[in-house]
């Protein structure tokens, strides 16, 4: 991964990414060891994408905002709003699939632009603005339609049931029939977005500016970077991605519902953090964040496979998050990056550390 050819062996972003990737591989290896029959199937791996593509897309958007030093907790609510709007539009009799796609992107961008303007140009706290964005999206969602709404438009049902079948990958079931691997279009969208955004963040001017702004907005300003426009761009992009996630969501489930995508913002934040993005900004990797989300999802699958009380799912997720957060800060401390130091009591601190 070390393409920057700097004197420093490896940057913080890449180090945290490497840890995240290693943990994911270990986790999946553990899952295979415990339940070889289910986790060795390709379908199980791709179902992680098939069923959770919206969450992965949201994780991407959130990591972009977090790299820029901000936070967006409205993404889940906006995604829910988009699914309901699309459902109502598609069921209204005049709707078309293309139109609903535009509608989804439009709503996402509108939220992103509004919040981005208020945060970047009016310098209001991102937490409060996106919190009220969340309330706004939630309120609009329940105002538009309260009851679950199943989309029955034939074109859309075709799209919903469409699956890419990969005949050369697959597994034979217990009866000996070969079942080819099926991939939902949402998976393709998610994978394409991961590739596109990773390239954008690594090699485009916008991406580099965003890392600079997140790392230290004051010095970014000194370097002549338009800090406000960069921040604005990150929120607008995040809004766009929530729109995409909303469309992918309704493409997967085929129904608008008040509870759609609720709580996704916290899951996406957790995924980004496990993937090595730091909330303080400037550190993160767009390939790491989806891997973080996948790690969380794998744990959930593992617990489901183990058949224990479902309450342990969230407890184990919390524990993993805790381990990860502590691990990150210990790693940063050991590397002495950014003057980062753990405030350990004197008897725990190594003798070489200067207080």
């Amino acid at each position, binding site marked *: 991964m070390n393409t920057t050819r700097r004197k420093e062996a490896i940057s913080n972003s890449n180090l945290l990414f490497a840890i995240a990737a290693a943990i994911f591989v270990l986790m999946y290896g553990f899952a295979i060891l415990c339940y070889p029959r289910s986790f060795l199937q390709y379908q199980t791996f791709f179902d992680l994408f098939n069923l959770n593509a919206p969450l992965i897309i949201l994780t991407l958007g959130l990591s972009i905002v977090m790299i820029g030093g901000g936070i967006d907790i409205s993404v889940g609510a906006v995604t829910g709003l988009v699914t309901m709007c699309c459902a109502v539009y598609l069921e209204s009799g005049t709707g078309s699939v293309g139109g609903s796609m535009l509608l989804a992107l439009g709503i996402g961008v509108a939220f992103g632009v509004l919040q981005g303007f*208020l945060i970047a140009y*009016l310098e*209001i706290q991102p937490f409060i603005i996106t919190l009220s964005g969340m309330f*706004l999206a939630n*309120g609009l969602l*329940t*105002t538009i339609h309260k009851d679950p709404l199943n989309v029955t438009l034939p074109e859309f049902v075709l799209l919903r049931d469409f699956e890419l079948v990969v005949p050369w990958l697959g597994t034979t079931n217990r009866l000996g029939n070969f079942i080819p691997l099926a991939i939902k279009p949402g998976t393709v969208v998610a994978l394409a977005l991961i590739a596109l955004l990773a390239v954008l963040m690594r090699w485009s001017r916008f991406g580099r500016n965003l890392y600079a702004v997140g790392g230290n907005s004051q010095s970014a300003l000194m370097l002549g970077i338009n800090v406000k426009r960069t921040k604005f761009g990150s929120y607008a992009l995040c809004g766009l991605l929530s729109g995409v996630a909303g469309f992918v969501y309704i493409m997967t489930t085929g129904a608008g519902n008040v509870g759609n995508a609720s709580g996704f913002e916290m899951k996406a934040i957790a995924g980004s953090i496990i993937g090595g993005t730091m909330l303080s900004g400037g550190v993160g990797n767009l390939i790491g964040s989806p891997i973080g989300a996948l790690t969380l999802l794998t744990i959930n699958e593992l617990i489901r496979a183990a058949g224990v009380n479902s309450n342990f799912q969230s407890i184990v997720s919390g*524990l993993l998050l805790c381990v990860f957060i502590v691990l990150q800060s210990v790693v940063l401390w050991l590397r002495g990056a950014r003057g980062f130091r753990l*405030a350990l009591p004197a008897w725990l601190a190594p003798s070489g550390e200067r207080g």
Partner: protein
Amino acid sequence: MKRKRTHGFQVLLPLSVLAILILINLVKGADYFSVSLINGALYGNIPNILFGASELVILSIGMTLVTSSSGGQDISVGVAATITSSVFVRVLLGSSAITWTAILAAFIVSCAVGIVIGAFNGSLVAIFNVQPMVATLILFTAGRSIAFLVDGRLSPILANDLTSQIGSVIPGVPIQTPIILTAAFIAVVAAFLKATNLRLYSEAVGINPKAARLNGIDPVRIKLLTYMILGVCTAVAGFIAVTKAGRHDSVNLLKFCEMDAILAVAIGGNPLGGGRFSVSGSIIGAYTIEVLNRTLLRLEVDPETIKAFKAAFILVLMVVSSPVVRAYAAKGVAKIRARLDASSARDSCGPEQEEA
């Protein structure tokens, strides 16, 4: 001198918002604020507002301290209150007879749990230098499941006279008990802040931890302390919430309360990045949120749309109080003032100035 002036401005914002809301209610009909005495207890909308906001007020007090010292918000307060109250219910139902001493003992145990939770979050923030929001995300994810495991079953019921008296009215006392408890808690916090140096220390740590360290204040200890105080706040809030509800619903108790508490801190004019704080501002902010909710209901806004209106209200409020708009306003005021000064110098008479 300068500090005092900015402090005054902090409380001005939530007070003016509250005044606008009260004005709207007065225009709608002044009988809204009438209070009557029925069966020896006060009834009316003012007691209802005070009653409804009690948990939020207590949580926002703790949140203000944490915001000041660590420059971040604890998003696990609602969940932490759920855990502490589940411990309270467990201990109380496990005791042989429900008496005042049993309730007190259970409450003290739940306070201890709250302090442990606060110490956990606080040590992550203070020792491991984790952003508060990230550190508390752990408990936010896991907490309600932990509360469920402590309960052992879905929503155990507190069916007895004593706890329902704490949740509503003690016979012979005209004011609802949660209001009294909240007032007592506010008094204790006020006395504590007056008697100790905590305000100065946490402001110093919040503004610049390194400078505080050089001045002999240990930032780690202060941050830990504020998180532990927040833990006690969550225990008290959980106690009030569960006695109000009469049963412990680990899924829905104080849901989204953390967002409202952060909002109360922001409306109270406290900078969310740490430093100077005003507990009175946060308290007024918490009551403002309650009044806002009730006003929207009174204006016959659909319950489904209330959230959207609330969001619009917050957005407008934040835009008005944002630094950029404030700077523009200050510039405008200065211009008007200069023009007025020039004209008054000419006319040698003092025209009245408009307050900004």
